[in-house]
């Protein structure tokens, strides 16, 4: 089971030094991805989703960012301890990131071909020192894989000649071209229309199934993770508050934050919208003590203000970080 873990983040702490203090952004994040698994990561703006994943790729701007604790194991090796040479190899062979906005993710002054071929060149194929012709063949194959028409011509195009949906497909092609083990997709459909988002999600699902790639899907839209993920993490203010298999999370959310979030989503069946969650995400300069959600929680208890809840196993893969479910009252409080 342990060997099965592709990515294993343990108790990660990240702070940002800014003028006037230290923003304590990630406060003990635990996160795992098994090989071949599709993991969703949901949370609202500013909760630390992207920071977590940037820490994995080690692309956080340092300074101001600083990792103050924790480990990130990728295939059993700690990314945080690697030299830049090792890191380059791990990134090339192991991971790729798809960004939210495909317009800024592609360099406007290079052709699609140049960028896609670079992605192939610095991937797992690097060791083999592939000849140019083969690199090009792989690039063409990758574009075919993402269902883009006329790939040969497309390689000569610049990003501005493509539509938003096509650019995102190119970004996905770059991610899958090098047989990477883990794809981190940061809001891949958010800047696109629903009909295009649907196409992109179907494409990602199809490709990851076919290539047996693991994927981390970062999003603030609950519906999107339900479509794609096997297992979902819910994040709030730098903490993971709940993790469960997708089906279970949607049928039986446990953490008060998850419950509130689900209720706030407008439903296609109508019937109005619940009133959302009062207050707003806390100030990271002086985050609330104990559970960071307690000032907004309608079920908070005295102990919530003092102690930080840890993950409690609720059976299966379902874990929740909330004192409502700690031992002793576990049986009684489960709805």
């Amino acid at each position, binding site marked *: 089971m342990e060997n099965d873990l592709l990515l294993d983040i343990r108790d990660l702490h990240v702070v940002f030094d800014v003028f006037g203090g230290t923003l304590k952004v990630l406060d003990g994040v635990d996160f795992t991805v098994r090989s071949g698994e599709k993991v969703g990561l949901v949370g609202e*703006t500013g909760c630390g989703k992207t920071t977590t994943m940037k820490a994995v790729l080690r692309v956080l701007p340092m300074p101001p960012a600083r990792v103050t604790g924790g480990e990130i194991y990728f295939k059993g090796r700690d990314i945080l301890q690697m030299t830049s040479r090792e890191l380059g190899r791990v990134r090339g062979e192991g991971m790729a990131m798809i960004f939210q906005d495909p317009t800024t993710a592609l360099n406007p002054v290079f052709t699609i071909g140049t960028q896609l071929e670079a992605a192939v060149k610095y991937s797992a194929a690097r060791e083999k020192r592939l000849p140019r012709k083969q690199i090009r063949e792989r690039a063409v194959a990758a574009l075919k894989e993402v269902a883009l028409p006329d790939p040969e011509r497309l390689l000569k195009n610049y990003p501005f000649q493509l539509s938003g949906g*096509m650019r995102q497909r190119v970004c996905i092609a770059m991610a899958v071209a090098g047989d990477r083990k883990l794809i981190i997709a940061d809001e891949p459909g958010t800047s696109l229309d629903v*009909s295009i988002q649907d196409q992109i999600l179907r494409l990602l699902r199809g490709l990851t199934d076919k290539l047996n790639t693991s994927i981390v899907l970062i999003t*603030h839209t609950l519906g999107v993770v339900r479509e794609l993920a096997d297992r979902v993490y819910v994040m709030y203010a730098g903490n993971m508050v709940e993790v469960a298999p997708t089906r279970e999370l949607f049928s039986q959310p446990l953490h008060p934050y998850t419950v509130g979030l689900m209720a*706030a989503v407008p*439903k*296609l069946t*109508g019937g109005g919208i*619940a009133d*959302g969650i009062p207050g707003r995400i806390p100030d990271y300069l002086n985050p609330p003590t104990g559970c960071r959600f307690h000032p907004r929680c309608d079920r908070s208890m005295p102990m919530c203000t003092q102690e930080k809840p840890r993950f409690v196993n609720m059976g299966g893969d379902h874990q929740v970080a909330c004192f409502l479910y700690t031992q002793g009252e576990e049986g009684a409080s489960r709805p």
Partner: protein
Amino acid sequence: MNGDLLTVTDLKKHFIVGHRGIVAREPITVKAVDGVSFAVREGETFGLVGESGSGKSTVAYTVVGMYRPTAGDIAFRGESLYEKGGKRRSDLRKEIQIVFQDPGSSLNPRRTIKDIVGFPLRLYGSDGNLQTRVRELLQMVELPEDYMYKYPQMLGGGEKQMVAIARALATDPSFVILDEPTSALDVSIQAKIINLLLRLQREFNLSYLFITHDLSLMRNVASRVAIMYLGKICEVAEAAEFFRNPYHPYTQMLLSSIPVVSEEEEELKPKRITSRGEIPSPVNVPSGCSFHPRCSQCGDTCSADDPVMVEVEPGHVVRCHKFA
């Protein structure tokens, strides 16, 4: 036309984006809105959905008076908003207000909230004390009084949008255009804003033109829904009917694409229809029915003739050859 507050008749807004040819300079036009007709009833929320580039915002800006229509007419309580000669009537400006999508850029960063909310009051001359009125308006949108002296950057996204709503209500309008008021916000804040808007609607008997690309949200706020594609309306129906019984293939495609959170919702999505293609550039609109290249039920006539609006059921109109 009893009970219609705002009537839009065959509205067109074309933009000239360039010229082709050297000798015979022929203008290149984008038909952002191309023959749109609808009516918003007193006290209702009329929803306008569509993908980006479908012309929904252009409709909004034309109705509010930021653009002058190329053709067609907009009437408010039966009276045209335009005088002879195409000048917009100034006495009806107070009645029609707008809330923009991004509260970050629609509020002047160098003005206090008091200045921002008070500006329409000074512009249109208000009775009574400005300070008192601003205080009332802030109370209406559930913001604390001391926010008056704050600047927009000191506020969260949801609070900024509340200020924008307060500003829109300052002139005591009867018609408010909401152009994607929550798409820049998180769901938990969206819920709060939407419920606030619905409460204000009941209290002041407001009519809304609600523009969004989020169909699930639309289901929960609108009483009637119109869907736009490339500058034209494809289908109009009562909200419940629109989601239960969509006729137009485009509506069906969009509905089937929505990510949902429960099994019951999954049931409502049209099956066997998967989205394909992308919205074409409005410079080169496809011939005939502009949706035909993406349509799964496209026939021979579709690429040749543009369909007309047909009333399939009372209050449910569709622009598709299948129903002609």
